[in-house]
């Protein structure tokens, strides 16, 4: 018994130090996690389409069909947050209606967030608010309920176009939470 006590006296301090280190490590990991979350939320909230995106000045080339669906995030050569295949499809569908094209691109960009940027509740909420803002932008076009819902449904199908993407998209909604509307102007580009 005495030997056990002696051993405990020897090892208790290293154990205490290890415990302290463990707590410090946990806290720092938590801090890193919160930082990353905060950065992503800010990135989601500040991302917007530009006039160049809408006018075609920033139009990407046709992506390589062999890699276009190879990854979840897909190909985004012009780095505007809208997958190139989706962006080109929207330009083909709405070549002459700039307002509709702008709203459609903004909506597509918001939907893509659920494939690429959502990993917890705050990032889901920021993405959902961005999506809500995109929907409000579509409502501002006064297309009527049927046309508006057809438009959003078609774009969602363009964005979530493979089983793998569908799985990731669904899993992003595990982080669904109550939320309101995003503040500010609905449309990124004022038509």
């Amino acid at each position, binding site marked *: 018994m005495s030997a056990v006590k002696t051993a405990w006296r020897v090892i208790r301090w290293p154990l*205490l130090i290890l415990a*302290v280190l463990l707590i410090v490590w946990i806290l720092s990991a938590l801090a890193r996690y919160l930082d990353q979350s905060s950065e992503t939320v800010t990135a989601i909230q500040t991302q917007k389409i530009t006039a160049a995106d809408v006018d075609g000045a920033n139009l990407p080339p046709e992506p390589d069909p062999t890699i276009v669906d190879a990854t979840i995030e897909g190909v985004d050569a012009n780095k505007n947050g809208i997958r190139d295949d989706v962006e080109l499809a929207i330009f083909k569908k709405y070549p002459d209606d700039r307002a509709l094209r702008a709203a459609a691109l903004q909506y597509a960009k918001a939907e893509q967030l659920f494939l690429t940027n959502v990993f917890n509740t705050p990032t889901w909420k920021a993405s*959902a608010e961005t999506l*809500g803002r995109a929907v409000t932008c579509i409502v501002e076009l006064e297309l009527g*309920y049927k046309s508006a819902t057809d438009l959003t449904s078609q774009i969602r199908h363009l964005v979530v176009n493979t089983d793998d993407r569908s799985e990731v998209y669904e899993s992003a909604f595990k982080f669904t*939470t*109550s939320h*309101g509307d995003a503040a500010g102007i609905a449309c990124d580009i004022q038509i």
Partner: protein
Amino acid sequence: MTYKYNKIFFSFALVAAILIPTQASSYTCSQAGYSIIFVNGILTSLPEAQNSQLLLKQALPLKYDSQNLNILLGYNPSHLGGAADLLQSVGQAFSNPVSEHDLKTILMQLHSEVSTQKILLVGHSQGAFYVNEMYKYLVENGVPKQSIGVYHIGTPASFVAAGGQYVTSKNDKLINWVRDSEVNGNVRTYANSHYTVEGVIASALRANIEIPPEAGHAESDYGGHKFGVYMDGAGDRIVSDIRSALSRLKSSDTLVESGCYNPPIKDAGYKLQAAVFSIADPLAETIGEVFSAMKKDVSKLASMFGKGGTIAQGSSNGQLASPLVALNPESSVAPATSQQTQATGNVAPASSQPDSQEPSPAVIIPEPQNTVPVFEIIPVAPTPQIVPGPSSAEYSPGFGGGGFALNSAPTTSGSSSGAPPASDPAPSTPDPTPADTTPPATTTLAIAECSLSLFGGDCVIPVTTVSLSWASAAEADYYGIMLDGTLQSTTTATAATLTIPASATSTIAITSYDAAGNSATSDNVIVSTISKPLIINEIGWAGALTAALDPSPIPDQWIEIKNISSYDIVLDNFDLYANGSQLVDLSGSLPAGAYLVVQQTGTPFSGAHKITSPFTSLSTSAADRLSLVWSTAEIDSTPLADACPSWCAGSTLKKLGSTAGTASDQYSPLSMERISDTSDGSLAASWQTTDSYGAYLGGGSLWGTPGSANSFNLPEAGVYCPGPNNLAVANQNFNPSGGCTYLSKFISGGFFGSNRYGGLYRGIVSSSTEVMVHSLGKSLATVTTDEVPADAVAGEDYFFAIWENRNFGNDVANFSAYLTAGTGSPPHGNYITIPWIYSP
């Protein structure tokens, strides 16, 4: 020594907990604006709640009453792979509380998001239970009752809080299942259910609309139930109902310490449930097939565990009555036991949910929870019973202590320990003999006004005072009048009047009480009220004859009624009165939004809905006060006879415009028309004279617009592009895109009147170029394709000109020379110009 080190470690934990910042923000609450909180129901896919919120957003306007309309999602999560929700829906259909944990979570999460005093809670499916409970919480925690409303879509609830409206489809399979589960006698009839829980009536509101089955309806357990199906099939009705609910919300000067309401406190019980769900939900996903199987066939699961789980034999055709059948509380079925474990011991901290905005507690203290009650439904046809669980602690306090019983129709229900009466007579004196636990017989409630319902099959009435009567019930000493499950008053009589909420759906029943306090409650009668379904919309008191002289008496008088509700209305119980005397007994029906023309003679007025009645001629020298009466209640009226010198608007034969030429002047009687659907018809300011443009702008004649929308009250001279809300105003900015309509009533007459010309000019009068010039014929209003030139510059001067083109001389050339170059002078004075500044 060990204790000492333990203290050190716990101190670290305490410091870490303190270091985690807490939210201590303050929020403001605006009197302007509206917040719609949508709470979803049972989910069939994870994105469904969010999608539903977005569908609602796409259907509603961005502003209501010129105030912002925010649409928020109150997320009701599916726990345990969704199975718990299915069970909850049945449990809650018996008037049990919602998951307190989820309710608190929603209220906490939305506290910082709700920024307006006026709040409308919209619940779909199981979300209906939540919004009922949210209403209760919010009015007790800072939201004035006048500022909050409730609306249900596809509801399994027995009432809508705040007297709100609801929409449930006859083809909603899930709600029909819930109703089937409630009582065998109710199978496939979807009539009122026949049971009470502790004296409280509990029955899913019956269907009040029929949405055609969508694709896949037959194969899906959720056929006809999804939010998207409701929006696709009844979107207009839902939007109309929501607008109606919003119109009743009023702000107040009530202040809340922070935000629009006081949020719930995150107590230990809440933290415990959060921890349980953080563990149980992922587990449930991994064994999703088990839960899926349970959803599809509860009987299989029950037999798997070999206990309880007696399945309701609710279907008379041999099919499984419903997947929504509750189980015996003794059963070890996962959803029930998972909640029971919450009170049985400590649970590990919720570190499995690091992403949560609300860090989980380090130490959890269990406390009793409001668990979802579970039931056993025993199929002893024809009198099924619901047997309570073994412990009254399973039930919420309001229902505890005595259980409940269920009887099927027609004997309906009985309860042996109902709540004491709210008033007379006094409770009975205790008796040394064994307690009387036999409830009295139930009675049958009749509501006189329901026999005059506004549409067949349902009780929808335009008044808020109803006359109740019921038969004496054996062994009953007195009766309680129940409104939305709440005792209003007691009486020993068998008749009473009751005031019910306006523009709302209410459930009314009579509870029979004996001297021992035993009670039995009658069937629900569901009554919906619409405060003003019909209005007097236009009155052709001066007739419909265009002539040069007033005939005597004036022929062809007519009165237009408009259905401003979203329902098809039966007219049989409506009458038109003039100065208190019946003028016309209405009959037939009128679709939602349609017009009925009551015509004195068989003049072929436009509009599909007409009644020809040789009613006593209306006065033309003084006004008559017209009123629309349902049964004996006045629903709408025109102003009092002495409110204006004569009729407050309209005219006997009136000369339209003037002429510079030789064409005959045009005369016409003019109708008196309502300015808006919502204006108070008894006020003079609510009426205007028809502008006579109806014949040229979508329906009507010079003398009015019977059978179609009222006129826009457009001016005698003007131009609008493309709609009447964009009328060119002299010397103001204007953009004439989309084609323009020229208004020229200042030139006399219609078909027999003068010809008109009009045009768009670039520049100012006497120094301009012609952009477009048109013959406008003899029309008072003419639609053109006018546009500014492609090189138009903002700030440039333009003007419109309209003139009478006489049938002699050369008015077109002369006006052109004058307007463009200032050459000469106008050939006559019957013309107008409207200068404006181009502003794209």
